[in-house]
């Protein structure tokens, strides 16, 4: 039978199961290409709606992209959008008295979808503004509550085949966005100022060597002054603010150094400009502000990345649950659920409230909580934890806690705390530069008083004093660390390694101990087929259709295997699909009975199977005949062994911490070459172990992915999380590996060590420079020529040295 794509969603199905429609009603007169095929009533409805609204150009824009089939049930639980509680939580009123809401639109696959949604919303009466972000599918809608209700807007979105649910643009995301934009604006101004001042400075320097009349010099000075002023006070405002907060808390930090250096150079330059002798240093002022600002911006960017990931995961958690009260089902917002309420859980739903099962049974995926990838079977009186996923059946359970007391919420609040809390390592780094700026400020003050008493001239003393600060601080030392870490961070980011803060590079470079989690870090964290025995009559398409109906990790492993082994399997519609709790699935196809599941299920049905294996087993039978047997196991990530031996070659002690059994831990450890294994650890014990090492004075790097690792991650000096890991883990971590390759851990070590070397070189150089230049300045020997040359040269050396980090070699580049 021919395969045909649905006219609306482009998904390919067998022609026999499609709804066929002929536009003019007369079959014979219509060419084949004009016949419409729909996979379901939903798609058909959307197609005609778009046609009647004059929006059929959507399909030209869509091209070959496939969509999710449209939902037929568009009016389900619409009334909840107009409830008072919902309004208070999500809807904001703007100054003009309009309502505003943030939505996540589900089902957006391409830019045509964005276009369609915006277009339809624009056409709706009463909608004043609607803009959808294609990157993260978030939408902002503003409407007049007197003209249209929110439920009507949601219905409109659903009518065209998408779904929308509200989210709280929690302060976090909004704040991250705002900071990002603020930095960006400041950088734009700084770059503009710097570029233009540099042009003028060229004329300046050229004039210095070839001789220039004072009146031309004045013009250039004034032009530089005009350009430098907004850069210093608008772009550099961040440093003044930081210095002020530092001052209030009695800490001299990097911001103090930058602010005082730039400000004193600025004041000195104004003095030089007005008094018409001496050289101006406006170019140094803007240079330092711009470079340090760009460094800070990169940090802000990587922080925002982490928040984005977190938001999308949190967004998928339901905001309401189905409760049963005296046999009546009703949707209740999760805030209103009380302890003792009975909640109904459907297959595929995420648990948001802790509780105890009262009726029903089923498997739960707790991998995000425990790291264990085998689903856990739960029945009456078993406890359900929020954050786990109900896999295959309808379960009723009694809430044992309200939402704020539930595990998921308490973990989330714990994380939000840790995001705002700064690690102590960074403060240490700030302290060192603080000492330095203290000393320089002190020397400058002493120089000033010394000259004042010896020479008696206030003006000379002031100029010499300021020249000490100008020469010592701004460029080389100020740039030494940020410039190197800037290059380091951007190289790491290009390789999918996100350092949330620049100082983490430094900390990581000092580390000698690496602790690894097993499940999800060294291994894939999901079962894959390791061995397959296929018997006569095996039809991959039938099995695929069967296992695709299930959410179970084992079924998903089989799906991946089948798709990998066989190309272009056709979709088959099965009937009477039924999942048997925690055991398997059964269905019928053209009167034949399909059965797939574990050994217990098949034995129950009287089919003899071979059960000797240390892995999980999955069997597939057709009408009582065994057709296939699969062994599944959690596979070790590609390149893990190589990465571990590379890391060990760097002189780093590698150990494994896992909550799994000794046996399976040893198996993985042996395969990747780790000698020290700590198995059967509870989350707290993992963290205690790390603390043990820290007490011995070690800097510990921890790599993990699950909620079970979160405490240990928070305890470690540097926490590395896998990009697909649990939101908690990503949040407490300092480094995120987007590509999840073990090799990236090695790369991160390599980059951080190389960067740290560059930082040390830079600091060494600028200290040497200071040791030579500061005494000269104190003695009053710094004439404009030396100042101008040494300043530009010293910063050029630092920038050039930092750029050398880019030449770092990675493995695959050599091949």
């Amino acid at each position, binding site marked *: 039978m021919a395969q045909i794509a649905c006219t609306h969603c482009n998904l390919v199905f067998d022609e026999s199961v499609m709804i066929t429609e002929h536009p003019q009603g007369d079959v014979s007169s219509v060419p084949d290409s004009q016949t419409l095929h729909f996979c379901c009533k939903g798609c058909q409805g959307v197609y005609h709606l778009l046609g009647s609204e004059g929006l059929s150009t959507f399909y030209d824009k869509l091209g070959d992209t496939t969509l999710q089939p449209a939902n037929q049930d568009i009016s389900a639980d619409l009334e909840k959008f107009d409830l008072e509680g919902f309004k208070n939580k999500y809807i904001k009123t703007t100054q003009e008295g309009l309502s505003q809401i943030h939505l996540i639109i589900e089902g957006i696959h391409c830019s045509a979808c964005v*276009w369609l949604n915006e277009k339809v919303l624009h056409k709706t009466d009463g909608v004043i503004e609607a803009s959808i972000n294609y990157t993260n599918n978030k939408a902002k809608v503003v409407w007049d509550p007197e003209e249209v209700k929110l439920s009507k807007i949601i219905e409109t979105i659903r009518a065209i085949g998408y779904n929308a649910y509200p989210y709280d643009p929690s302060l976090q995301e909004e704040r991250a966005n705002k900071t990002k934009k603020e930095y960006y604006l400041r950088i734009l101004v700084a770059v503009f100022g710097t570029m233009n001042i540099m042009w003028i400075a060229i004329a300046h320097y050229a004039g210095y060597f070839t001789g220039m009349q004072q009146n031309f010099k004045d013009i250039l000075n004034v032009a530089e002054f005009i350009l430098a002023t907004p850069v210093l006070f608008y772009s550099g405002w961040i440093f003044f603010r930081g210095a002020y907060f530092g001052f209030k808390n009695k800490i001299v930090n990097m911001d103090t150094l930058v602010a005082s250096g730039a400000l004193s150079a600025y004041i000195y330059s104004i003095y030089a400009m007005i008094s018409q002798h001496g050289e101006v240093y406006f170019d140094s002022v803007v240079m330092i502000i711009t470079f340090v600002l760009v460094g800070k911006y990169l940090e802000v960017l990587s922080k925002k990345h982490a928040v984005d990931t977190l938001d999308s995961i949190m967004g998928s958690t339901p905001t309401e649950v189905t409760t049963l009260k005296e046999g009546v089902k009703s949707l209740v917002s999760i805030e209103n659920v009380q302890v003792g309420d009975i909640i109904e859980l459907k297959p595929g739903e995420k648990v948001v409230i802790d509780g105890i099962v009262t009726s029903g049974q089923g498997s739960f995926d707790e991998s995000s909580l425990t790291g264990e990838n085998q689903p856990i079977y739960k029945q009456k009186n078993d406890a359900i934890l929020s954050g786990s996923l109900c896999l295959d059946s309808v379960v009723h359970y009694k809430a044992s806690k309200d939402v704020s007391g539930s595990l998921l919420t308490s973990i989330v609040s714990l994380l939000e705390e840790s995001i705002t809390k700064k690690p102590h390592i960074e403060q240490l780094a700030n302290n060192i530069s603080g000492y330095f700026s203290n000393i320089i400020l002190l020397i400058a003050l002493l120089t000033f008083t010394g000259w004042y008493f010896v020479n008696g001239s206030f003006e000379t003393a002031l100029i010499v004093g300021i020249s000490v600060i100008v020469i010592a601080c701004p460029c080389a030392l100020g740039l030494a660390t940020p410039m190197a870490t800037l290059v380091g961070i951007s190289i790491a980011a290009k390789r999918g390694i996100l350092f949330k803060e620049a100082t983490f590079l430094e900390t990581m470079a000092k580390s000698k101990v690496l602790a690894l989690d097993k499940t999800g870090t060294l291994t894939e964290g999901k079962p894959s087929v390791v061995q397959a025995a296929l018997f006569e009559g095996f039809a991959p398409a039938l099995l695929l259709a069967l296992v695709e109906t299930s959410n179970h990790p084992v079924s998903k492993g089989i799906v991946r295997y089948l798709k990998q082994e066989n190309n272009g399997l056709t979709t088959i519609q099965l009937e009477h699909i039924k999942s048997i709790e925690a055991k398997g699935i059964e269905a019928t196809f053209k009167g034949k009975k399909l059965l797939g599941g574990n050994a217990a299920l098949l034995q129950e049905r009287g089919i003899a199977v071979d059960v000797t294996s240390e892995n999980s087993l999955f069997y597939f039978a057709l009408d009582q005949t065994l057709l296939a047997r699969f062994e599944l196991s959690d596979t070790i990530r590609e390149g893990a062994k190589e990465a571990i031996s590379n890391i060990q070659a760097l002189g780093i002690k590698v150990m494994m911490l896992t909550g799994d059994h000794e046996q399976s831990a040893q198996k993985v450890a042996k395969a990747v070459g780790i000698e020290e294994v700590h198995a059967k650890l509870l989350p707290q014990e993992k963290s205690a172990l790390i603390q043990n090492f820290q007490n011995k004075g070690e800097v510990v790097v921890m790599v993990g992915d699950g909620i079970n690792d979160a405490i240990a991650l928070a305890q470690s000096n540097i926490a590395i999380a896998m990009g697909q890991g649990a939101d908690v883990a990503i949040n407490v971590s300092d480094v995120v590996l987007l590509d999840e390759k073990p090799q990236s851990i090695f790369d991160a070590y390599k980059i951080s060590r190389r960067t740290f070397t560059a930082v040390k070189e830079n600091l060494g150089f600028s200290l040497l420079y200071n040791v030579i230049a500061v005494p000269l300045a104190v003695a009053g020997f710094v004439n404009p020529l030396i100042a101008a040359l040494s300043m530009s040269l010293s910063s050029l050396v630092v920038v050039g040295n930092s750029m050398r980090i880019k030449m770092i070699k990675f493995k695959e580049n050599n091949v």
Partner: protein
Amino acid sequence: MSENIVILMISVSTFLGALGLIALLWGVKTGQFDDQSKFIDAARYDGEEELRDAAMMQEKKEEQKKKREAKEKEKNYMPPD
């Protein structure tokens, strides 16, 4: 070369540059660069129809504003004594 020429050259070029900067700042502030992918697509879906759409939204906004103002007036209306 007289001073005036130098002053003129520097000030005119800086002023023109500043205009560009201000336009860019305005664009960033009003969120025109917020969505990278959409920003690129905007060039593809740019036509008469889109322009009409934008105009329609603008009209809607103004109408709404007028209505509000009218209502405000009604509310604040005090009959003469």
